[in-house]
């Protein structure tokens, strides 16, 4: 369970997160959507402890994560872009991360196996294509059976087969009771996977509810339409307030 309470963050004069309060439900997939620069990545990075919020707090299993790092043993993270130390081999990268998390009890090598990463164990990371690097970070994110999975645009750069494998894996993890938080621009993908939708605009969630709720609230049957409707309503509200 991840609880976000009144989170604020600005970079200089720019308020990136503006009073964000959210509960990320366990055992389900929550998708964070929003236009570019709406604060999605910053929100995700706050949960990972990569960005320090100015105000507010984040609780993981009822414990504040501020200045903590042990909680990250429960978290698997797949960033948007991956670059690795160029002169290490694939095998060495995996042993490095396993070394750092030696207290992890058992490892889940399903993605590692399905992406056939074992076959390129001796290859240097600097020589790999973008898609392969993406497969590696996916495999790393799932490796330690994390109870919380955080994925930032996970399928960008993956081929269709790899994307399907990843989606299957996500559904499997949900069935196993894991909490998944995912950011994406691909509405189809979100519609296919997500149980909950959080729509962020200008650093504030303007919608937070289940897939059925968003469709019901907007009287639309398709998610993309529903999102457009939500954004329009938000803008009208904004104009109304200014008037």
């Amino acid at each position: 369970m991840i609880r976000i309470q009144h989170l604020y963050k600005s970079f200089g004069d720019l308020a990136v997160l503006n009073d964000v309060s959210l509960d990320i439900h366990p055992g389900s997939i929550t998708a964070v959507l929003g236009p570019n620069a709406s604060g999605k990545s910053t929100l995700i990075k706050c949960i990972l402890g990569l960005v320090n919020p100015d105000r507010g707090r984040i609780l993981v299993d009822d414990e504040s994560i501020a200045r903590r790092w042990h909680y990250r043993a429960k978290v698997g993270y797949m960033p948007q872009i991956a670059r690795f130390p160029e002169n290490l081999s694939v095998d060495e990268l995996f042993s490095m991360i396993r070394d750092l998390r030696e207290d992890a009890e058992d490892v889940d090598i399903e993605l590692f196996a399905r992406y056939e990463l074992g076959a390129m164990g001796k290859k240097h990371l600097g020589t790999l294509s973008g898609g392969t690097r993406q497969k590696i970070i996916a495999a790393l994110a799932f490796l330690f059976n994390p109870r919380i999975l955080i994925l930032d645009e996970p399928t960008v750069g993956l081929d269709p087969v790899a994307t399907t494998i990843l989606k299957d894996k996500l559904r499997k993890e949900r069935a196993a009771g894991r909490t998944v938080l995912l950011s994406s621009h691909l509405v189809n993908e979100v519609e296919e996977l997500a149980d909950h939708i959080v729509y962020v605009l200008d650093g504030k969630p303007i919608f937070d509810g289940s897939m059925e709720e968003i469709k019901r609230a907007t009287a639309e049957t398709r998610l993309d339409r529903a999102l457009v409707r939500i954004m329009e309503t938000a803008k009208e509200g904004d104009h109304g307030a200014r008037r």
Partner: protein
Amino acid sequence: MGHAGKILKYELHNMVRSKWLVGIAAMLFVVTEVLFRFGGDPGKTVTSLMNVVLVIVPLMSVVLGTIFFYNSREFNEILLAQPVNRTSIYLGKLIGFSGALCLAFVVGVGLPFVIHSFGLRAYAGKIATLLAVGCCFVLIFSALAFYAATRFEDRIKGLGATLVAWFVLAVVWDGLILLFVHLARDYPYEPGLLGMVFLNPIDLGRILILLQLDISALMGYTGAVFRSVFGSQNGIILSAAAMVIYAAVPVVLGLRTFRRKDF
């Protein structure tokens, strides 16, 4: 092994295989070898090498340090998302990087001395001083580079800042010292001069090597002052302490910035 040690180990692995590092070791080897062949006795070779150490080692440390740190930005995000604290990541990377660079320096410069083992015994102290000062420079200037790369989001700014720092310490400082001596020539300027030397690690390193080379007599009265300060045991302890402080300051500043940074 702690987390910092593990990160250090893999950083070292990665660096040792880097083409840059191999290139640097090869370049230093060639320069030293050439100086040996044309310079005659090892004493002269050490003197010529001193200039390489004083100028090139800090320069390559700041340039490579900034480039490597900026290049590892995305991977740092992956490391930071692991259950590891930030201090371990930063120190592991810094020590791994500077350790690999020290290795390249010691191998590149040291190997020709081993090959031409003649006169080595007589010069062992001087060569050891040269190598020790060089390794101190690697650590000081790598720490400076890491600090700048953490502090500035923009690569160009970070690289620019470290190059300016290098330029001031390696080049401008000597001008300032000359200016000071010129302005204060009617007064006993040695204490002030000594202070200025202590404020710059590159000058401090230069004096330490020069005093080992028995050519301090050429520096007249000032040389005698330096000899009396640096030559004594207290002087050596004092300059070693100053070197440690020069390394510690950028390490602490960088660590502080890294711990508070938003990635």
